[in-house]
C-alpha cells in the first residue's frame, strides 16, 4: 500500500519526549477527522509504545527511538515505533496482561491497551537487537459516526 502522507521522527529515549511523541501523532492523525475517542485511543497507544522503549528497551542508557505514522487508503492510520534496545525474548509472554519486568511502577498493561485501542498490533523483536511495534487503526468516516 502506498502512503498518502507520513511523518518520520527520531528522538532520544528521554521521558520528557513521551508527551511530544503522542502529541505529534495526534496532530498528524487529526487530518483524518477522528472522533475525540479515536484520538484519545491513538494518543494512549503511542504513549504506551514509546514509554516501553524508554523504560524497557534502554534501561540504563539513552538510546534512539524512531516513530513513523502513515495514512493509507484514505482513512487508515499506521504507526511504527522502533528501538535498538535490549529486545524481547518471549513476545507472547510480554503481551500477557499484567506481565511486567518493570516492578511496582509498571502494571504490565501496555500491550493489552495497544491491542484493545488499535485495530491491529504486531511486535517484532530480536533479543539484543531491538523491537519494532506496528499498530494500525481505521478511522471511521465522518458521515457514519455520531460526532462528539
Amino acid at each position, binding site marked *: 500500500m502506498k502512503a498518502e502522507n507520513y511523518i518520520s521522527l527520531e528522538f532520544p529515549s528521554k*521521558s*520528557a519526549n*513521551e*508527551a511530544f511523541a*503522542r502529541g505529534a501523532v495526534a496532530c498528524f492523525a487529526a487530518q483524518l477527522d477522528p472522533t*475525540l*475517542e479515536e484520538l*484519545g*485511543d491513538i*494518543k*494512549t497507544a503511542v*504513549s*504506551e509504545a514509546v*514509554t516501553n522503549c*524508554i*523504560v524497557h528497551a534502554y534501561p540504563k542508557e539513552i538510546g534512539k527511538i524512531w516513530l513513523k505514522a502513515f495514512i493509507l487508503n484514505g482513512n487508515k492510520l499506521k504507526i511504527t515505533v522502533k528501538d535498538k534496545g535490549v529486545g524481547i525474548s518471549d513476545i507472547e509472554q510480554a503481551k500477557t*496482561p499484567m506481565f511486567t519486568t518493570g516492578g*511496582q*511502577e*509498571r*502494571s504490565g*498493561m*501496555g500491550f*493489552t*491497551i495497544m491491542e*484493545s*485501542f488499535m485495530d491491529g498490533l504486531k511486535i517484532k523483536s530480536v533479543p539484543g537487537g531491538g523491537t519494532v511495534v506496528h499498530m494500525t487503526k481505521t478511522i471511521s468516516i465522518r458521515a457514519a459516526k455520531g460526532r462528539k
Partner: protein
Amino acid sequence: MNIDTHPRGAELTFRFSGEIDHHGARNAIGEIGGKIEFFRPHICCIDMKEVTFMDSSGIAVVLCAFNKMRELDGRVQIINTPDQARRVLDAAGLDRLVTIAV
C-alpha cells in the same frame, strides 16, 4: 502531573491534575503511598477532574492506592473520571477493584 492532598476525617482525597504518564507519574507512587500510610484513612478518593491524559502509568498509581488501602481494610474510589482515563482504567479491569464514577 500534580497531586493535591486533602485529608478530611476518615477520607483522604487526592486531586490529580495534568498528564499522568511515566514522566509525570515518576514520584506519584511514593507520594500517595506515603500519604496513605501517614493518614491511614478508611476511604481513599482520587479526583481525576483535572486530568488531561492518562496511560498505564496511572494504572500503577491506582493499584498502589488499592494495595495500601487493602492493608488498612479500606477502599478506593475514583471520581470525576474523564472519558479517556476511563477507557484506560476499564481496559485494565480496574472497575473490578475500585469504584469509578464519572
